[in-house]
């Protein structure tokens, strides 16, 4: 049996709601002074016993799993399931509330690539700096620098300040550093969503090489294709709990059926991390003209969205942002403005024409916004991952060609005309 590299035992992470970011010395002092005088705390919200101290949220709830040498583990779950929190705990960004995590060897965490890059420094200086931030000492970096520069494919610009790099070059350099850390456990959080396709493949190859060499990879992504390609084990997380630990195929299946593709969903129970105050809240969505959220090209999606408004707004819109399977936003559309009253539960039926959308899997993000075209937009409530749907391929509609998303992207434009 392979040596164990990582043990996660009974780990929970609790976040407090309400108070976050609101703490001021002035606020605490006035509260204290009021208590001393036996007066009512001026900072308490009416009808509440104390601060919103007691309201808490379990981002992770008693999660345990192990990673052995040679494992390539995918952490799968929808947004808010606790995947990123888990990675943050393992990479020591923040501490767990309970439980213990044991690690053998070096962990390289790529929650973001290019952390600590400074735009004024040259590529070479940034390799040293980034390497040191990730835990390599100078001698180690010097030993590997040739390999790193080669892997990055930007030899001729290596002494140019990074501020003059294109974003693609930036990413290549950053991943090159991380890939050469020689970690025992490598943690990746959707960093591959950037960069060109050829380079993405190179990165994936590097990651599977790490796993094959008897180290371990822990990977989080919404892109099931790369997950299936890279990983040999899958963990499925749902609302902070580990629901499945086993094959990657089964984990992907569970994810598919976890409500992400269900046609009727209670949105109220999902975490709404991007919600601004107690203003609006999406409650429920139902897709009307479909069974499995699969649509033919150029068809129309219909759904109804139910929300509650806690304040009136004369110009509210429902905005729909479409992301492709790599979670990259590709398009936006929205409704006409409509009026809502305070404390109104409103429901809107919406027709979404899928004209021109290429075959592939898409993610729907919905925001409740207000604002006129020239003013500031108010985002009341946003859900990143409301649902997923598939546009099925039909070569008959495309001059006999099967659509290649990797090469052609997400839109089928009108045919070119010769005149």
């Amino acid at each position, binding site marked *: *049996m392979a*040596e*164990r590299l990582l*043990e996660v035992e009974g780990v929970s992470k609790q*976040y*407090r709601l309400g108070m*976050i*970011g609101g*703490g*001021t*010395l*002035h606020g*605490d002092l006035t509260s204290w002074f009021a208590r001393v005088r036996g007066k009512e705390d001026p900072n308490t919200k009416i009808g509440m016993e104390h601060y919103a101290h007691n309201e808490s949220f379990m981002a992770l709830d008693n999660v345990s799993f192990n990673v052995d040498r040679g494992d390539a583990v995918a952490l799968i779950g929808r947004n808010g399931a606790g995947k990123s929190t888990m990675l*943050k*705990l*393992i*990479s*020591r*960004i*923040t*501490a*767990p*509330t*309970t*439980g*213990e*995590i*044991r*690690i*053998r*060897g*070096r*962990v390289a*965490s790529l*929650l*973001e690539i290019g*952390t*600590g890059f*400074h735009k*004024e*420094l040259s590529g070479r*200086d940034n390799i*040293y*700096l980034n390497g*040191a*931030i*990730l*835990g390599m*000492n*100078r001698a180690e970096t010097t030993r590997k620098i040739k390999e790193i520069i080669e892997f990055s494919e930007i030899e001729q610009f290596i002494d140019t*300040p990074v501020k003059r790099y294109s974003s693609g070059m930036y990413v290549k350099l950053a991943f090159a550093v991380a890939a050469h850390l020689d970690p025992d456990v490598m943690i990746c959080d959707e960093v591959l969503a950037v960069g060109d396709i050829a380079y993405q493949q190179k990165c994936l190859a590097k990651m599977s090489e790490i796993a094959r060499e008897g180290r371990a990879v822990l990977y989080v992504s919404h892109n099931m294709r790369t997950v299936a390609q890279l990983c040999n084990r899958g963990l499925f997380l749902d609302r902070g709990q580990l629901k499945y630990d086993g094959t990657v195929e089964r984990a992907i299946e569970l994810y598919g059926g976890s409500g992400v593709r269900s046609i009727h969903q209670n949105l109220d129970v999902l975490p709404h991390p991007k919600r601004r105050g107690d203003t609006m809240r999406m409650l429920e969505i139902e897709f009307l003209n479909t069974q499995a959220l699969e649509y033919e090209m150029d068809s129309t999606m219909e759904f109804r969205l139910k929300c509650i408004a806690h304040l009136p707004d004369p110009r509210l819109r429902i905005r729909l942002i479409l992301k492709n399977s790599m979670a990259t936003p590709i398009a936006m559309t929205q409704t006409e403005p409509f009026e809502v009253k305070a404390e109104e539960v409103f429901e809107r039926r919406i027709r979404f024409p899928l004209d021109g959308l290429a075959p592939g899997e898409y993610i729907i993000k919905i925001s409740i916004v207000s604002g006129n075209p020239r003013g500031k937009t108010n985002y009341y409530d946003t859900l990143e991952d409301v649902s997923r749907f598939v546009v099925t391929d039909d070569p008959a509609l495309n001059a006999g060609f099967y659509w290649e998303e990797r090469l052609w992207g997400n839109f089928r434009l009108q045919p070119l005309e010769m005149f």
Partner: protein
Amino acid sequence: MDKTRNGAGWDTVIRPRHGWFDIDLKELVRYRDLILLLVKRNFTVLYKQTILGPAWVVIQPLLTTLVFTVVFGNIAGLPTDGMPKFLFYMGGNICWHYFANCLTVTSNTFITNRDVFGKVYFPRLCMPFATVLTELINFFVQYALFVVSVVWYATRPDPVIHPDWRLIALTPLMLLQLGVLGLGFGIIISALTTKYRDLAMLVTFGVHLWMYGTPVTYATSLIADKYPRLLGLYMVNPITPIIELFRAAYLGTKVYSYSYNLLSIGVTGLVFLLGVLLFSHTEKTFMDTV
């Protein structure tokens, strides 16, 4: 196999927030290359970003010193213990600047590095240490200017200043102490600002006021003459004995009592210890609140 599976031999164990005295200084030593690279980064960026670049390091204290000389020395006519006004103010000024910069920059550690801290782990103390070293380099640039001025005054016929070589040998100790004090106060504030945001605004203001409680723009003898009973209280300010000693070394002013320096060293150690404890306590979970 079973041994490696369940036994000890784990390199890292992550537990819920540890106790107050859980500080891993060995780890900091392991990351010393990072500290040096951060210093290099800070320095390169300073050179590259501003038009005046490193000249700014010299111009700023030089102008302040000139203003002090004119305002406090000539217009207000404050006594400078018979020393050349320019040298007197400059000596106090470069020491104060070094301390004040260490304090203000480190006090923003968590806020300015929020993005990096949120994405990758390394001992958070690397950042304030790198800051202090960067400020030390800046200090040396100003110090060079100061030494040149001291030499110029000291080699003139019938010099007014009398540098004391034995005390000058203590310069590294004084610099260490100023740096550690700045770092200590800075990280205490940085730890508190993660909970209390409005504290950050008080820092600049507070440091400014603090300067007037320190013999930068006047001589300690002014306090000793006017309010002799307050002198003991005045000397509690840990910066005061250091600046006094610095002036005594390079200019030859008199030091009231070396026991104040011992007190200052004690305070320095205490502030540093408190700072490191508070900082380490905060660093593990501050990402949840910032």
